[in-house]
């Protein structure tokens, strides 16, 4: 139980401390230290859940099982490595005069609070608090998207706020309907929105209300997942915000939103006993894969392109969870992990490359392999990994999803394969010219932190070659839970 307190308490305290001292010279290091402690607490919590099974704590307010504890560990890990990356990156931005001390303070404080809201969304047992935490996650990041105060970044932040705000309002209506159905079975009061209670009585919940509730929950949280046609905020927010933000938005927030969708799906499946939720998720997942892949080739901005790649991959995961069954769900969970690690690693390298060349336009970034081999090769390897090349972990999860699709939904397989092919062509050709070729870029005043990039890629490589038995067991348990 204390682990839960630490996991949530450290980033909350960190956010408050950095709100006062976030502009000082040592603040970036302090940000890293807070993230490290959150990570350690997350690992301890994970070890405990692995050892003792699911935990219900603080009068059932928090619930940790194998599904969310692995996301907690992943969130804490990526937020720690992103903090490592962000230290030299933000110092360079400050050095270039793009950020004032006040902006740095805002950034550091909001970074910690953002991590807090995501961890709260993952750990809470209350579907209402889940909504509150998801909305709070939007609020903490709005001012970070507009951090540079350029017209484009302000526009991106406005779009982000309005679209996600309206989207998440739909999810609130879904939550109200869920409560309405639950109240009839569980009685009024605080317990009727607790997921564990709902899960226990899901067979008795009114099917018509639940199916309507799921539509609203899916639209609402789906907006935050970045599912087409509600994905418009995503590429703008990724391209215009500071790069560490893009890394955590893509790597973590989208996962947390998908987590909310999957938790709702478990309840609806139990109440309906039909494939209604599955079909909805498969349809929109597939649409996102296709549209995401088609938009890739039209991009000029590197961060925008990889944002569309996130739309594509989130679609693939939604499709996998929609398909259901132990193998597809296992693959979806694995894909969540490897996508999160790979995509954040890519954003780290793209961020440094953009900082070096002073532009995010891909046709002006050239010859990274010559001037800074680690950035160049990091980007190349990261792109190969995200494109699903063996032996990286993304290959393993995509292979599992595709083979399961061949058996369960054969009509979808050619569409998926075509989309993955288009994505490969689009990303590979762009990255190749960015990595190789002539260049005139200058050196950066603060040497970039590239250890996180290679740590992430090494883990993804490892997951592609060999999934440790305890991790596989973990995924299997979670898959069993989700169904």
């Amino acid at each position, binding site marked *: 139980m204390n682990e839960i307190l630490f996991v949530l308490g450290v980033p909350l305290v960190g956010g408050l401390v950095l709100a006062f001292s976030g502009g000082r010279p040592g603040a970036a290091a302090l940000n890293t230290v807070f993230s490290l402690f959150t990570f350690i607490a997350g690992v301890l919590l994970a070890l405990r859940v692995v050892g003792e099974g699911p935990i219900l704590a603080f009068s059932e307010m928090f619930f940790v099982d194998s599904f969310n504890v692995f996301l907690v560990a992943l969130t804490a890990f990526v937020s720690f490595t992103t903090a490592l990356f962000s230290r030299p990156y933000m110092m360079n931005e400050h050095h270039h005069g793009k950020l004032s001390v006040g902006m740095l303070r805002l950034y550091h404080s909001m970074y910690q609070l953002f991590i807090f809201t995501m961890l709260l969304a993952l750990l809470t047992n*209350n579907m*209402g608090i889940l909504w*509150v935490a998801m909305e709070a996650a939007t*609020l903490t990041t709005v001012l970070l998207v507009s951090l540079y105060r350029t017209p484009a970044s302000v526009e991106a932040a406005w779009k982000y706020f309005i679209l996600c705000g309206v989207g998440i309002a739909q999810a609130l209506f879904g939550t109200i309907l869920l409560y*309405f159905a639950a109240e009839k079975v569980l009685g009024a009061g605080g317990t009727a929105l607790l997921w564990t209670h709902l899960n226990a009585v899901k067979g008795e919940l009114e099917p018509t209300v639940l199916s309507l509730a799921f539509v609203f929950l899916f639209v609402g949280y789906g907006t935050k997942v970045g599912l087409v046609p509600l994905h418009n905020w995503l590429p703008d927010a990724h391209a215009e915000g500071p790069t560490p933000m893009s890394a955590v938005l893509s790597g973590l927030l989208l996962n947390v939103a998908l987590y909310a969708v999957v938790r709702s799906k478990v309840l609806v499946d139990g109440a309906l006993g039909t494939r209604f939720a599955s079909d909805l998720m498969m349809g929109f997942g597939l649409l996102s894969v296709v549209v995401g892949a088609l938009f890739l080739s039209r991009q000029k901005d590197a961060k925008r392109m990889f944002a569309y790649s996130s739309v594509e991959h989130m679609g693939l995961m939604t499709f996998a969870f929609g398909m259901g069954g132990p193998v597809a769900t296992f693959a979806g969970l694995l894909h969540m992990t490897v996508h999160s690690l790979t995509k954040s690693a890519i954003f780290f390298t793209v961020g440094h490359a953009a900082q070096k060349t002073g532009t995010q336009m891909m046709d002006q970034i050239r010859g990274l392999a010559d001037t800074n081999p680690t950035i160049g090769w990091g980007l190349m390897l990261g792109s190969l990994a995200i494109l699903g090349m063996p032996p990286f972990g993304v290959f393993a999860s995509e292979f599992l999803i595709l083979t399961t699709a061949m058996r369960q939904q054969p009509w979808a397989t050619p569409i998926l394969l075509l989309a993955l092919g288009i994505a490969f062509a689009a990303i590979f050709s762009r990255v190749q010219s960015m990595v190789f070729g002539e260049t005139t870029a200058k050196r950066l005043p603060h040497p970039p932190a590239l250890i996180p990039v290679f740590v992430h890629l090494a883990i993804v490589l490892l997951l592609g070659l060999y999934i440790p038995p305890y991790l596989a067991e973990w995924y299997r348990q979670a898959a069993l839970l989700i169904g």
Partner: protein
Amino acid sequence: MTLSTQLINLMAALLLLIAFAMLAQRRILSLIHLFAWQGAVLTANSVIVAYSTGQTHLYYSALLTLALKVIVMPLILHRLIIRLNIKWDVETLINIPTTMLVGIALVVISFNVALPISQLAGTITRSTLGIAVAIVLLSFLMMITRRKAVPQVIGFLAMENGLFFAATSTTYGMPMVVELGIALDVLVGMLILGIFFFQVRQAFDSLDLKHMERLKEE
């Protein structure tokens, strides 16, 4: 029909009227007043429901609504428009009659959507769910038709009011901890938007959203 049911229906009718008035209101200052009135009617509604059903936690939620939606947020909005110097701004809305007609169609749709759910509900307020859905959709319509930042945000807040009304009419309100969380989110969101208006104006020299067309797929 008891007196309390009649009163609740009256409140619902008033809320619908206010939602339509907001749709057609061109002056920003009047919009803020309408928003405050919406909050006041919501508060009255919560009190009536609480009194007639004996749900005491609704009194707290009414108090929260009164403090937040009738006093604090209209005050913040008021101060904002004074500091932004747009107190007397008038928005040119094209085709108010068409918008109203679309609004009426939305109300009809809402009643149809809400019908199966209200039939399942056992609350005395169940007939008002259709109106709650209508308010959400009308606020959404308002957000679509507005091209200026402040009215769009008021539309957003009105949508939240509609959802709050939906929660009261189907279930006598959400659990207290959730309601507190939602109130916190709305308040923080309002403060962040307050900062954000200044950023928008600094970046675009105006709060007119028609300048926002940089980020597009070509």
